[in-house]
């Protein structure tokens, strides 16, 4: 599904602040893979995510998504196939627009023209049904301004927005780190349910080693812009939180 070939990215090249953020990273994700990425601050996790989603162009290398070369595709075009959640729950939604309007922005139906006025009844009913699945009671508050919701509620709606049209790739950048424990747990559970239901290829960055090993089927550890560890199957089964944590310390 996703293939990265020798991605390099250097920030502030040619200055004293020069920093190699991604050093010849190659990675291949088969369809349906759920990869968790761990690594210290500045290891290149977020840079990798940004390179894939097109926030900036990589200095060299190729990115292929579902057999299409997207190396030079603009960020908003990639977003048609890539769902994204950020750590900051404020980043994923438009605060001054209603829940329904936010969902409408994410719900791109080929048959609906850009000049259609209002949100269709059928679409609204579909939004309501989807919101009900979050079990947060938001289905009755579709006309509420997004900014009035709590962080957890906002992140849950962002999750819905990112997956309402099943993306080819879902990227989660510590999307529960800013939430309180119970909200974080809830959002994480919803994330798992949706990924499993729609079989979405997923990359999740986390600082929580326990959930990095518990979730998904593959774990990658990044260090100094490189993939330092890539485990799946039995090797990952045998990995314990203590062992991974100690490796963390070693490379740091």
């Amino acid at each position, binding site marked *: 599904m996703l293939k990265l070939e020798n991605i390099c990215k250097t920030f502030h090249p040619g200055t004293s602040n020069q920093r190699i953020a991604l050093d010849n990273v190659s990675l291949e994700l088969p369809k349906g893979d759920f990869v968790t990425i761990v690594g210290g601050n500045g290891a290149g996790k977020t840079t990798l995510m940004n390179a894939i989603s097109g926030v900036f162009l990589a200095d060299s290398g190729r990115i292929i998504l579902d057999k299409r070369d997207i190396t030079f595709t603009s960020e908003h075009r990639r*977003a048609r196939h890539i769902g994204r959640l*950020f750590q900051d729950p404020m*980043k994923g939604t*438009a605060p*001054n*627009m209603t829940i329904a309007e936010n969902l409408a*922005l994410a719900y791109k139906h080929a048959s609906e023209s*850009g*000049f*259609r006025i209002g949100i269709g009844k059928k679409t609204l009913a579909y939004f309501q049904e989807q919101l009900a699945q979050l079990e947060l009671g938001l289905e009755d508050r579709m006309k509420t301004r997004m900014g009035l919701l709590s962080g957890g509620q906002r992140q849950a709606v962002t999750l819905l927005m990112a997956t309402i049209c099943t993306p080819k790739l879902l990227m989660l950048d510590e999307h529960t780190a800013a939430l309180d424990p119970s909200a974080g747990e809830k959002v994480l559970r919803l994330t798992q349910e949706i990924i499993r239901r729609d079989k979405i290829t997923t990359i999740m960055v986390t600082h929580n080693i326990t959930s990095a090993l518990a979730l998904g089927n593959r774990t990658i550890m990044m260090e100094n812009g490189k993939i330092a560890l890539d485990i799946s199957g039995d090797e990952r089964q045998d990995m314990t939180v203590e062992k991974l944590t100690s490796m963390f310390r070693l490379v740091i």
Partner: protein
Amino acid sequence: MTFVAFSGAVQLGLIFALLALGIFIVYRILGVPDLTVEGSFAAGASVSAMLTVAGRPFLGLALSIVAGVVAGMCTAFLQTKLRVQPILAGILVMMASFSANLYIMGGRPNIPLLREETLFTGLADRFNSVQAARFFLPVVVIILSAAALGLFFHTRLGLAVRATGDNEEMCRASSINTTFTKFVGLAIGNAFAALCGGLVAQYQGFADINMGFGMVVVALASLIIGETIFGRRGVIWNIGAVIVGAIIYRIIWAWALSFRIDPANLRAISALIVAAAISYPAVKNMWTVARLKRNARRDGRHA
């Protein structure tokens, strides 16, 4: 204030509501106090005036909209493709449009229309009343354009434009082309400003190269008066608030004039209104902090 002065103020308010809506679009929806509108306003006036002189006042009004769209797109191009800071992009296009407007007006800084057939004089002949015509046309134009704007903001494209000003990062992550939505937003906002200029020229009977000067502050004052009185709710509500705010601003203006306040001072008053309204939350906060400190000191002494 005489009745004539009052009805004139309402008429002007209805016309300048277009400008206030233009500022509403660029400042409240897109989040940039875009100075281009001063240039678009004058551009609309000059296009409208020149075509009125040529005997085509309606075409003049229609083409003034085009002038605004062009100016807005120039700013959008600078802002997005060339990454000029939004404020500076507006200033640059405003500067350039001064030359463009002078060119449109054939190198003359002022085009009188007092003896020309304008849309207002045409309607006045039909209604047999100058005042009726001066109400009718602005009312029709503002109702049509406000309705169109309200509907637009509920289309998919309109939602995307609103979201661009609300959370740009989220837009790009939701596959919205924010470059495109900024072009659309700035084009529409400046089209409103230019349409306003076009109407003003025919209403007052002249176009002047300097007539755009200070218009951003005037429009912002109208916007803020409307928001302070009616609050900010849904888009449709806000559009209505802006229109009423523009009318109230003009009534205040006329009222001030009736006291023989030097019109030259009115710009300063407009600027004060805007500064006071925008700084209100900060001033309120300072006052609260001061009170808390005072209370804490007093309680400390008692302890």
